C-alpha cells in the first residue's frame, strides 16, 4: 500500500514538474515578430488570417500585382520567433506545419518552405526574392534591413 502511494506521489510530482517545465519553455518573454515581404510587393498590410493564407499558399499561390510565386521562409530550428508565428499567425503546431508542406509538395508539386538559420538569412532571402514572405524578430529589422523588406504585420506574444 505504501509502495503504491509513494508511486502515485512521485508520479504526481513528475507530472507537475513536467507541466511547469512546459510552461516555462513556452514562455517567450514578450517576443515581437514582424511578418515581412519584398519591398516591391504592393501589399501594404496583412491581417493575421491573410498572412496565414498567404504563407500556406492556401488560396492564392501567386501575389497579385506582381504575379510572383509566394515563397514562404521559415526557421530551420525551433526558436521563439517560430513559436510565436506558428501559434499566433498559423494556429498550428510545428508538426502540423511540417506535415502540411509535405502534403502540398506531394499533392501539387509545390516547393516546401525555404528554411534559414537566422533572422538575417530570412531578411536577405526576402530582400532578394520578389515573392517571398517570412517572419523575423522585430528587433532584427535594422535600417539596412528595412530598406530591403516591408513589414506587413507585427505580432506580440
Amino acid at each position, binding site marked *: 500500500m505504501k509502495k503504491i502511494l509513494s508511486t502515485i506521489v512521485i508520479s504526481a510530482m513528475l507530472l507537475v514538474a513536467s507541466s511547469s517545465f512546459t510552461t516555462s519553455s513556452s514562455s517567450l518573454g514578450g517576443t515581437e515578430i514582424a511578418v515581412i515581404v519584398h519591398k516591391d510587393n504592393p501589399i501594404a498590410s496583412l491581417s493575421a488570417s491573410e498572412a496565414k493564407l498567404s504563407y500556406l499558399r492556401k*488560396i492564392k*499561390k*501567386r501575389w497579385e500585382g506582381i504575379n510572383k510565386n509566394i515563397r514562404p521562409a521559415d526557421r530551420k530550428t525551433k526558436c521563439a520567433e517560430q513559436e510565436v508565428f506558428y501559434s499566433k499567425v498559423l494556429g498550428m503546431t510545428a*508538426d*502540423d*506545419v511540417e506535415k*502540411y508542406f*509535405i502534403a502540398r*509538395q506531394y499533392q501539387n*508539386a509545390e516547393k516546401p518552405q525555404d528554411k534559414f538559420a537566422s533572422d538575417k538569412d530570412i531578411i536577405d532571402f526576402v530582400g532578394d526574392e520578389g515573392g517571398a514572405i517570412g517572419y523575423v524578430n522585430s528587433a532584427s529589422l535594422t535600417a539596412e534591413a528595412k530598406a530591403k523588406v516591408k513589414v506587413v504585420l507585427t505580432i506580440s506574444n
Partner: protein
Amino acid sequence: MKQKNKISKAKLLILCLVLTTGTVFSQTAQISGFADVIAVASSDTAGGKMQTKNNFSLGAIDMFITSQFDKVSFLGEVAFEWDEVDFERLVINYDIKNYFKISVGKFYTPLGYWNNTYNHGTLIQPTISRPEVLGDFIKSMHLKKQIGFQFQGDGITKYNLGYNLAVTHGITDIGYVDDADEGKALTLNLHAEPIENLKVFVSGLYDVVPKGQQAVSDSILLTDADFQIFNFGVAYMNGKLPFEFIGEYYNVSHNMAETKSTQGYLLYAGYRIKKFVPYISYDVLLYEKGDQYFNTNNSNAATLGLRYLLNAKSVIKLEYKYRQLETTGVGHFVTMQFAIGF
C-alpha cells in the same frame, strides 16, 4: 512477353525522362518520399475455407522529385513495390494565374477528394488501406491516374471555388506510350472551400470504351460502351477543430449490353486528441446484378483504428477491419502500419 518488353522499355524511357527532367531542374529539385511496413493478423474465408494468418509485409517505397522554377513546377513519382516498379506520376505544371494552371503528364484523375489527396502517401492518409471503391475497383478501370492534360484553378471568390478539367487517355489500358483507342476521357471536378479546410466537391468523368476492347470480366465488348462516373462529397481534414471527416459517393454507369451502374461510398471520421486520432470508417461497393463489364463482388468494410503521430514525418496506425465480400464471406483483419516520410 512482347507486351511485357514493350512496357519495360516504356518504363525505362519514363525513368530516363524523370531523371533528365530532374537534372534540368536540379537547381531547385527536392527528393522526398514515403515508406511503410505492415504487420497483419487475419482470419478470412478465402477459397471457401477459413484461414488464419499473421505476417509482416512491406508497403512501398514511394519516391518523388519536385522542382519549382517560377511559373513552372515538376513532379516525378516512382513507387518501388516488392514485385514491381511503377511510374506513378510525371507532371509538369505551368502556373499562369491563381485561377489558371495547365498540367501535362500523368497525374491523379481529378475525381473526388481521396483519390487526389493520398494514393501512396501513407504518412498523410488517415487509414492504412484505401476504401474499396478506390482500391481494385477504380484500378481495374485505370482511373487512379491518367495521362493527358488538365486545366485547373483555385482561389476564385471568397468561397475559394476551384475546378479541374482533364482530357486523358481514359478507361482502356494504354501502358505508357500507346493508347488503345482514339477517343479520350473528359473529367470535370468542381470544388469549394467556403470555410478553411472544409471542402465540398462534385466531379464526373465521361468516356467511351470502343468495341473489341476487353472488359474487366474478360468479356469482349461487341459495341462501344459509354461510361459515366458521378461523384460528390465533403471533407474536413487538418482543421482547427479536433474532428475530421470525409464522405464520398460514387456512381459508375455503363451501357455494355445493357445499362448497369455500380455504387460506392466511403465514410471516415476521426477525433484528434493531442497526438492520437481514434477513427472509424465504413465503405461499401455495390454492383448491379447482371453487370457484364466488371467481376461483380459486392463488399462492405468497417474499420476501427487509432493513429499516433510520432512526429511530422512518422506515424503509427493500428486498425481492426471487418470486411464482407459477396463471394468469399467475412474477414477480420488486425493491422499495424509504421509509415514514414523522408
